[in-house]
Structures are given as C-alpha cells and as structure tokens.
C-alpha cells in the first residue's frame, strides 16, 4: 500500500539551510483518461502535502493532476532546534498518510 520515503539530514548545525526530500507512492490518476470501454477513469490524486516542524507548519503544497505519479517534492528549511518533522499527504477517495523524521541540531 501507500508508503513514504523521507530524506532529512539526521544532524545539522543551528542556522544551516537543509534540504528535505519526500516521496509518496500514489498512482495520481488524472481523471482525464478513458478506459477501452469509453468510461472515464475517476480522478484519484493527492491534493495536499503539508510539513510541520514541532507542530508549526513550515511548508505546504497544493497538488493538481499535472503532478507525476508517486509525488516527489523537495524543499528547504532552516535548522533552528532539534525536533520532529511531520509530513502529511491528503487526497481523493479519503487518502491520508503521515510520516515523520527527527533531526538533531547542535
């Protein structure tokens, strides 16, 4: 089933700008494709991705069918203190997944 890959540096120095890479497995069915019978394949995509650090939102993305299958998103943040990143994906047909990663800032 759905699974996430998260890449966050385990350690960083205070003030460092770190890159966070995330990948969630998902078909991202666009809703614009037809089956051989002519029926439209219903849309099934991830519509939102949120990253929180120690409870505060640091990054958010609204996704559309133009995002490729298995959405891969990378972004940056400033390391300020040790803590936990929480990732959340939400989408069509009740899709909801979470993941987390910890960082030590010294």
């Amino acid at each position, binding site marked *: 089933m759905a699974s996430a890959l998260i890449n966050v540096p385990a350690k960083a120095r205070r003030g460092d700008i770190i890159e966070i890479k995330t990948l969630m497995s998902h078909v991202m069915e666009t809703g614009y494709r037809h089956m051989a019978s002519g029926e439209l394949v219903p849309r099934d995509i991830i519509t939102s991705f949120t990253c929180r650090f120690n409870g505060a939102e640091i990054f958010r*993305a609204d996704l*559309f069918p133009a995002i490729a299958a298995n959405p891969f998103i990378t972004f940056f943040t400033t390391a300020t203190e040790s803590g936990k990143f929480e990732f959340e994906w939400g989408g069509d047909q009740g899709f909801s997944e979470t993941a987390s990663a910890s960082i030590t800032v010294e």
Partner: protein
Amino acid sequence: MQQPSHSSRRQFLGLAGGAAVLGTIPVVTVHPAEATPAMLASAIQQVTGGAAVRTGKVKLDIPPLVENGNTVPMTVSVNHPMAPEDHVRSIHVFNEKNPQANIANFHLGPHSGRAQVSTRIRLADSQKIVAIARLSDGSFWSASVDVVVTLAACTEDVI
C-alpha cells in the same frame, strides 16, 4: 456494471463510426480537452488578483526537450532573501496545454531559508510552463519556459 449486450454493440458501432469519420485510429488517443492560453491567463489571474506580474527573480529549471511527458523533473527557485520582513510567500506553477492549467502551489515562509522547490510533473503536449512567485510585499515575479514533449501524458487511454 453489467451492460446488456446490444448496448455494447451500439457503443462499438458508434466508436467504429467515429473512427471512420476521423479517418485514422491513432495508437494513443489524445482527447481535445486541454487548457487554452485563456485558461492559463485566468488561472494566473486567480492567484495574482489582477496585479502586475514582472519577469525576473524566478528561475524555472526544466528540460527543454522531454521524451516522456509522464514524469518531467522541474525545479523552481526564486532569487530573493528569505528574511522575516521580506521573503517569498508562495510559488505557483502553471501550464498552457494540459487539461487543467494548474500544476502546483507551494507555500513557503521566512523559515524556508531558500526559496526553491523541486517535483516531477506531467505534460500533455509541447507547451509553455509558467512559474510565478508571490513576495511578502505583494509583488509578483515570473519566469516561463517552452518545453517540447514527444510522448504526451495525462490524457492517453488506458489500454
């Protein structure tokens, strides 16, 4: 759902008739549903609210020639400081010819440190991609890139 046999026969005849009208049966059927430059303009209008969009600051990194439109790596970066009083608030990416003009919206803040995001997108046709950055002072900056796609995504039929 089980269809009565006569209706599927009718469907088949309809499809065959349609194909005859078109003259050829393409291997991959690309449906005419596509965003138009007008849809692109209205999607941008929804983000900017009619404010002027200046060219610059934004860098849109995307291969100019794409073999497979199903997964196209894309990086958007904005050359702007990320200070609490002056930073990039969001980055919006649009296309011209997919069925829908939006690609993604990314919401950032001063804690982001660097206004740069990467993802992989789908492109249904050779077209123009536009990235717009909204700064904390309310100004908008943009960049656009023309991309040639040889294998289209999004609308091909499921075989």
